[in-house]
């Protein structure tokens, strides 16, 4: 499956899951759908995840609230039944709102409290470096998450330890829970910030798979990489795009039907 098609399927599942579960954070999950599709579609081997190979690619979703996108990707690459996506948020389910690793193949760690997954990912990358293993560690963080001091503690640490096989992808949709990042805690030029911390930084269109693929493929000899993925929150459903209401609201009634109609109209 092409990554573009995987991304479409992720979005389609995300709408269905939020609708069924009355789940929140739809906008966030749609925002990272392309990033997740490129990662799970092209940078991991599902068999290696299943076997928990020492050299498997590690993917950590530090912005755990967008977990629906990860579950959808796992189901599409065959690591869990697609049917199970219906249990998102449900009593007794494995699929909590914020991403959970318990009992799931392909999720390395559980997250949900911002700024913590990045440090765990750095620890995994460090273990790989000490073992002389080639695996790469990808971690997805939100731009609002970059308000957390722990992000910058990790940024100092990863550079100091020369964790060049660690790649941080910042979902730069310029929105956080209460509004525009520029109006809450202005992050200015995130790429320059990471460069100032000694990282290799690349700005890409976070919905352009070719750009993502290229940026994610490269690693530096010594420096960790930050891919600043410029995205649109709610991407793929016109009335959700750049509208923070969809950080909270779940699509019901006409909203649900319109979202489905829009997505179905551009089915790959």
């Amino acid at each position: 499956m092409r990554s573009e098609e995987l991304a479409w399927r992720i979005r389609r599942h995300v709408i269905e899951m939020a609708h069924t579960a009355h789940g929140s954070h739809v906008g966030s999950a749609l925002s990272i759908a392309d990033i997740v599709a490129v990662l799970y579609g092209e940078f991991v081997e599902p068999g290696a995840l299943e076997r928990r190979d020492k050299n498997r690619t590690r993917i950590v979703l530090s912005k755990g609230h967008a977990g629906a996108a990860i579950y959808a990707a796992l189901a599409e690459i065959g690591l869990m039944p697609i049917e199970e996506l219906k249990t998102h948020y449900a009593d007794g389910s494995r699929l909590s709102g914020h991403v959970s690793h318990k009992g799931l193949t392909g999720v390395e760690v559980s997250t949900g409290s911002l700024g913590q997954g990045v440090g765990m990912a750095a620890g995994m990358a460090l273990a790989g470096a000490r073992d002389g293993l080639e695996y790469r560690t990808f971690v997805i963080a939100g731009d609002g998450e970059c308000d957390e001091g722990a992000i910058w503690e990790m940024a100092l640490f990863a550079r100091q330890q020369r964790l060049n096989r660690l790649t941080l992808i910042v979902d730069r949709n310029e929105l956080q829970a209460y509004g525009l990042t520029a109006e809450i805690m202005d992050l200015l030029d995130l790429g320059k910030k990471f460069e100032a911390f000694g990282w290799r930084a690349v700005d890409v269109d976070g919905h352009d798979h070719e750009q993502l693929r290229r940026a994610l493929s490269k690693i530096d000899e010594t420096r960790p990489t930050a891919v600043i993925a410029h995205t649109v929150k709610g991407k793929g459903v016109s009335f959700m795009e750049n509208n923070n209401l969809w950080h909270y609201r779940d699509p019901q009634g006409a909203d649900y039907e319109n979202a489905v109609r829009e997505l179905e109209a551009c089915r790959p």
Partner: protein
Amino acid sequence: MRNAFINELHRLAAADERIFLLAGDLGFGVLDKFRQDYPDRFINAGVAEQNMTAVAAGLALEGRTVFTYSIGNFTTLRCLEQIRNCVAYHGANVKVISVGAGLSYGALGVTHHATEDLSIMRALPNMMVFSPADALEAVAIAKAVCEVEGACYIRLGKGRESLIHQRPIEGYEIGRAIKIFAGDDARIFSTGAIAFEALKAAESLRARGLSVGLYTFPTIKPIDRGVIEECARRCRLLVTVEENNIVSGFGSAVAEIISELDGRVAMLRRIGLRDEFASIVGSQEFLRRQYRLTREEIFALIEIALTDGGGGRAANHLVKYFLWDYLLSAFAAAIIFDRRAREQIFYFSAEVMQ
């Protein structure tokens, strides 16, 4: 205690390559040998404990036994949520070390007093909590935590603690209390270096002929339920002694068990910081006196309680002070108000004078 623990860790690391040590830019002079001998397994993670803890969890999930090291509250409360989520929830094999148990860093001020850590760490699921009383217990705990998979918290004194034990503790089993003295009237349970004060109090009480036992609890979670139950049924009085807030601390852990026992059980008294910060400047010894964490306090509490649950002591007080006062007052009143008494006293005095 600190050096003994780190030396033991150094020794264990020689045989176990999984052992990593992450320091939060503290441990100058203490960790140097580990750093020299295992440069790939020692990481100074800088003054960034939240990241250090999350990194430790990541490393542990990749098969390492990871120790995080700093002082006071820096490896515990500063990064509490990372400990909860990244370490404890994931069951990561991370061993959190804090040096400076209780009021060890007395004069440095309240930021450096670790006086709620036992309470807070104990409340985390999946977390084992250790508080050795002396260097020998610290060595035993170092071995034990390396042998067990999962999250541990180890609270260490900063050094020069008096020894409680006479010889090394072999084959320490996690969760066991250690009997120092037997004694059936009262038993003292203590944890951490303050146990030495309990030891001295127990010795004085025993010298007075009271049958007072003493146990140290190097592990406070999982706690030794068996010993607590047995003691609660056998004795009249149990006293817990800790250099920690009594709210939710070691004494509370004992109280939780006793409160669920059926039938007649011992009376429990808890000695610890009484839900306050130690805000006066001073050494550990000075602050222990100020906040009533001394052998004298332990002695007095037990002596009063044992002499008839306080009644005997109260009777003593009555005889010594009140009764004597009463007789004197009666005597004075008689002199003033009763002519015959006055005359008799007068004649009596005159006879004596002659």
